[in-house]
């Protein structure tokens, strides 16, 4: 009933995220992730977050590597063909008592969990997961927390028989109701209407499922600009709490019509994240020492950012090369 949304600075927006919050990050693997918002979480040193991206990309690997995450209920964490999620790996490999607890899901059931949250129902049924190790109770990495931790369902799944038709066994998956939803979009209206081109992924559902919705965008625009084609807008404004204008807020991930993936970033991050010590160095160098989003963009430099620009119609940059093993330096291009 309050008039929404508030327009805030990046710093003030992320100040609303609390230690221990359950956080959903919009986008998909290396596409349209809310990187600028996540960077600021790292700068503000949030701890004990529960992550539930569906699936996770560099933003999740980074949050795990920077020590911000305690739990992940996630189906996939990775950088697609760019390379492996080394921070995630390091956090769980060979660890009897990891600081970060990883609970595996699938794209479909993760999506249904967010959908359940958006619908206000405690669960939804699925025909997936039957036959997989993913749902075996003995494999459940969060078993010992369940029942005590109010952010986690009392059990991972339930299996019931359909009472209406053929008596088929159906898996019920619990709702996800994140404390915070972070989204980056091409444009957001002053009243919160979110305009997304390319895939909208689960951002709409997550916004409805979450208690606090923070949307950063390349541009904040007058609402009237967004009222010619209602079906082109992805998220109704009344579910958006905070808007932040943040150009290149999805960098290094791709934003349809604005910029493509930054292969140099992935090359450097992947190289650095292979080892704990080098990752710390990268973190200081790129996030902590350069003073906020403006400093980050300055460090990237205009030449590099301009090289990433996408064709507004095609959505991508047809010139950019994507093989990290054959990458030329920006200066050489």
């Amino acid at each position, binding site marked *: 009933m309050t008039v929404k949304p508030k327009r805030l600075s990046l710093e003030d927006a992320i100040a609303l995220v609390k230690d221990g919050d359950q956080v959903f990050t919009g986008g998909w693997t290396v596409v349209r992730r809310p990187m600028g918002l996540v960077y600021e979480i790292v700068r503000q040193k949030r701890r004990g977050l529960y992550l539930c991206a569906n*699936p996770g990309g560099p933003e999740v690997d980074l949050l795990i590597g920077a020590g911000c995450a305690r739990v992940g209920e*996630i189906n996939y*964490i990775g950088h697609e063909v760019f390379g492996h999620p080394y921070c995630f*790996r390091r956090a769980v490999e060979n660890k009897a008592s990891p600081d970060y607890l990883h609970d595996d899901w699938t794209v479909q059931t993760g999506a249904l969990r967010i959908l359940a949250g958006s619908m206000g129902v405690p669960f939804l049924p699925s025909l997936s997961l039957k036959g997989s*190790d993913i749902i075996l109770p003995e494999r459940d990495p969060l078993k010992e927390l369940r029942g005590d931790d109010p952010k986690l369902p009392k059990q991972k799944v339930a299996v019931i028989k359909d009472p209406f038709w053929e008596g088929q066994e159906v898996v019920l998956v619990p709702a996800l109701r994140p404390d915070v939803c972070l989204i980056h979009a091409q444009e957001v209206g002053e009243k919160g209407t979110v305009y997304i081109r390319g*895939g909208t992924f689960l951002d709409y559902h997550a916004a409805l499922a979450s208690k606090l919705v923070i949307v950063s965008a390349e541009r904040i625009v007058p609402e009237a600009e967004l009222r010619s084609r209602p079906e082109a807008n992805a998220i109704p404004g009344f579910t958006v709490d905070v808007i932040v204008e943040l150009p290149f807020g999805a960098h290094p991930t791709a934003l349809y019509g604005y910029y493509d993936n930054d292969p140099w970033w992935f090359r450097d991050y992947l190289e650095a994240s292979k080892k704990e010590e080098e990752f710390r160095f990268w973190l200081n160098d790129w996030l902590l020492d350069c003073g906020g989003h403006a400093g980050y963009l300055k460090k990237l430099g205009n030449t590099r950012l301009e090289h990433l620009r996408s064709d507004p119609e095609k*959505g991508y940059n047809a010139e950019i090369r994507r*093989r990290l093993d054959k990458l030329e330096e920006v200066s050489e291009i």
Partner: protein
Amino acid sequence: MSNYSRLEMMAIAGARLLANGEVVLVGTGLPLVSTLLAKHGHTPDAIVLMESGLYDSNPQALPFCVADARGVYQTPWIGTAVELMGQFLQNQMVDVGFLGGAQVDRFGNINSTCIGSYAEPNKRFEGSGGACDIAILAKKTIIIIAHERQRFVDKVDFLTSPGWKVRRYPDGKLIPREEAGLWGGPYAVVSTLGLMKFDPVSHEMYLEGYYADMGVTVEAVRENTGFYIDVSKARPIEPPTRHELHLLRTEVDPEGIFMKY
């Protein structure tokens, strides 16, 4: 010496398994390369789906993930994982699921989660993504994977994506796929050495063909397979045609993103 690589042969062998008009739900990497090769070639009416929400994708440039703008361009409709995985896939509208993986066993069960124990893994992978869903819910699945002894294993370290012998809930006993109430199942495995299918009765993997033109032998397949594999029905696989190689190299993956030229 053949004038094409194992990766190319594998991509081409995968493409040949698709039929025109099929609805194909495809993961990134080699499955995508194979599918787009087929789409550029003998299956122009295949409908290519990707789990992030893409429908009838027909990219002008190779997407390098299932959410890439290259896959969106000029599609006639777009959805989310709710529609793709919660509706199309679950509602049995997907003819073929095309998957990769880190390990496969002789019943076509796939592991894309970890090596070693799940609680304390020696090596952790990215995770299921949509693979588990697709393996359970597609009308059939094709698996594409490098042929190595530590990948073709007797028992997967973690059963991410169910094949023909699957986990019973909640006790984890291995039971036949049908007994768990699942339709579909693995149809073929395309590897760096050849093409495997599954016996219709025992549902065990057997060798159907091998890349004889590249010097692969049935013995090589056996040596690189961590379980007993029937090779009695195996035949040499036709080498790539010039047209297939041309499409792959000039239309599908000219940058060599996946083919690593």
